[in-house]
Structures are given as structure tokens and as C-alpha cells.
């Protein structure tokens, strides 16, 4: 029986759910999130000798994933638009089938409004408000200073409130 050092799978495995969620938040579809994460795992495996010495492997891997997403942002943005088009056909924005939640906000309408935010606003809003990353963690992932992220987050929320209008519909 051979005593193994920590393997790639043992090192990165515990972070896969978090990386998948990040990939989904960035790309907006399961298929693209899986493609992106698969792609990143291949890259990480090529650098596996570095992994054992990285302190915050989850955040570090998140940054690798986010950079990979940015490298291919045009491709994913096109697919996101296609996905939005498909969703619009499947879920027409009528108030009839809306599912109200607190204070009249409908979860699907909010999602539709989030999809119409700029990529920068959507990213910081989803990472901070949905995934509950701290701003300093988002700084580590994106390389954007905390001050910039904070003002971007506030603008994103303001834009979202504006998109949703006074009655909470979009």
C-alpha cells in the first residue's frame, strides 16, 4: 500500500460546488457553467504541482475560473443572449403567472432584470448579494479594488430597482 500525497482530486474536489456556482453565476446556464468549469479543471490540472502551496485555494481557483470566463466573455455573452431569448419565449413576462415574494417582488422578474444589467453590475451583484462573497474576496477574484466594487454594487442595486420600477414587475 502506497501512502499518497494529496491528489489533485482531493485538493480541488471540495471546491467544486463553489466553483460550479460561480461558473453558473457568470455564464447563466448549466451547460456553459459545466463547460467553463471543465475547461478550468484541465488548466488547473496542468498546474497541479502549485496547488498544494496555495493558501486560499478556493479563492485562487475562483480567480482562475473568472479570468477564463473573461477571456471567453464574448462567446459566453452571445450564449447568454441566446438563452435569454429562449427563456423569454418559455416564460413570457406577464404578471398572470408571476409568483410574488416579499414586498411584491417576483423571483423570475428579478432574475430577468438581473440578466439585463451590464456584465460588471451583474457580476458584483450576484457574487455579493446572491453568493454572499465579501467585497475583499471579490477583489481577490476579480482584481478590482474594494472601493470600486462597492460603488459598482450600489449602482447595480440602483439600476435593478430602476428596472423593476415602482410595482416590482419587470
Amino acid at each position, binding site marked *: 500500500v502506497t501512502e499518497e500525497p494529496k491528489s489533485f482530486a482531493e485538493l480541488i*474536489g471540495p471546491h467544486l460546488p463553489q466553483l460550479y456556482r460561480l461558473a453558473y453565476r457568470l455564464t447563466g446556464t448549466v451547460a456553459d457553467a459545466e463547460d467553463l468549469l471543465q475547461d478550468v479543471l484541465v488548466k488547473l490540472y496542468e498546474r497541479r504541482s502549485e496547488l498544494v502551496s496555495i493558501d486560499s485555494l478556493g479563492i485562487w481557483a475562483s480567480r482562475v475560473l473568472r479570468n477564463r470566463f473573461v477571456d471567453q466573455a464574448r462567446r459566453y455573452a452571445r450564449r447568454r443572449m441566446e438563452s435569454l431569448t429562449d427563456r423569454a419565449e418559455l416564460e413570457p413576462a406577464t404578471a398572470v403567472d408571476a409568483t410574488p*415574494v416579499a414586498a411584491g417582488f417576483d423571483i423570475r422578474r428579478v432574475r430577468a432584470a438581473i440578466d439585463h444589467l451590464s456584465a460588471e453590475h451583474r457580476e458584483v451583484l450576484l457574487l455579493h448579494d446572491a453568493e454572499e462573497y465579501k467585497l475583499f474576496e471579490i477583489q481577490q477574484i476579480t482584481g478590482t479594488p474594494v472601493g470600486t466594487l462597492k460603488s459598482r454594487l450600489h449602482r447595480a442595486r440602483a439600476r435593478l*430597482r430602476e428596472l423593476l420600477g415602482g410595482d416590482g414587475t419587470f
Partner: protein
Amino acid sequence: MTCNRIATDLDAFLDGDLSRAAAEVLERHLAGCAPCQATLRRAQALCATVRAQSVPGPSEGFFERALAEATKPRPRGRQSARIVAAGFLGAFAATILTVIITGLWVGAPRSRVSDATPEVAMSLHETKTVNLVFAAKNALGDVVMSVELPPGVELAGHAAARSVEWKTQLSAGNNVLPLALVAVDGRGGKLVARLKHGDEEKVFVVDLKVGQQNRQGVTL
């Protein structure tokens, strides 16, 4: 404090970023201003709705498949050499069991190769990573490696590949070839790995048993 100021400080208040003094001023204003109370409640509700945006899970078995794909042997180019020369690939949680089978390449200082055929127990449709570890005394270039699979056992994610062959190099010391295998029926059989270097050939055979209890750390 004015209602306009509320709009400016609202997000900082929601995030707990206001100073204690500024928060107390805002709270005093809120206590006497119904429209601002409504604005705050609405902002809080919107944040809660954003937080409630769900993430659908990945397709079944995705993490295991993705790891197997990321760590599979790559038959062409620089990638394959790096895989073979790299360190161990191990188990992912409890779903991939790693079995170490060590053979010694010719030229090793002391041969410990056994003629016995190692057995690897597999469960049907469960990905198992088998690490073939080849020890070489010296680095060897132009090594041709091939792997032949028995019927009913596939390389994870590459169902059509019954055998693969590629040229690689061995580093001095342990060289690991991780194979992510899936048994698609109960037949099992013998996996044959061959290493050829010039006129020399070394053949390693692993007996894959399907449906038996797993064993860890089988070493020749």
C-alpha cells in the same frame, strides 16, 4: 437628515458599512418618515429576492466526469509527457477509488516485479481511477505506451476508445499514469498496458473484477 440623503446612504446602511453615528442619524430619520421606511423595506426585500436566486445543480455525475476528463491521459503533445511525469492522482471523495499498481521498468536497481496479476475490484457504472506507477532508474525518451481495455470497461468519457497508444517519456523515479475507468457491464477482464523502448517491451496486466468489493492500495 433628508429623504434624499437616505437614498445615498441606503446601500451602505444595508451592508452595515455606515459608521455607528451615521447609522443612528439615519435610524432616527426612518423612525419618523413613512416613505423612507417603505424605501428601506423595498430595498431589503429586493436584496432578499436576489439572494433567493437559485442555482440549478450540475448534471448528474458532472463533478466526477469533469475530474476524470481533466486528469485523463492525453495521448498527443506536451500534455501527455507532463501527465506521465507528474505526481499522483488520487481519490475524489468516496466515489473514485485509487489503486496503486507499481511496476518497475527495465534498468531499475532492484527488480520487484511480481508475475502475479494484480486485481482491481470495480463497481458497475462507477468511475474508478487506477494509477499505474512505472518506476524508472533513468529518464527515458521515445517510450511508446499503449493501453488496451477489456470489453465492458471504458475510459471515462471516451466510450469508443478500446485501446490508446502514444509516445511519451519517462522521468527518473516514479511515473504515474492515471486511468479513469468505468465498468459498463459485469464481464470485467484484463487491462493490458505496454511500454516499448527500442527493442525492449514491458507488459503490465491488471485483472479488472466487476461487482466485487473495492480494495485500496494494491501494490506489486
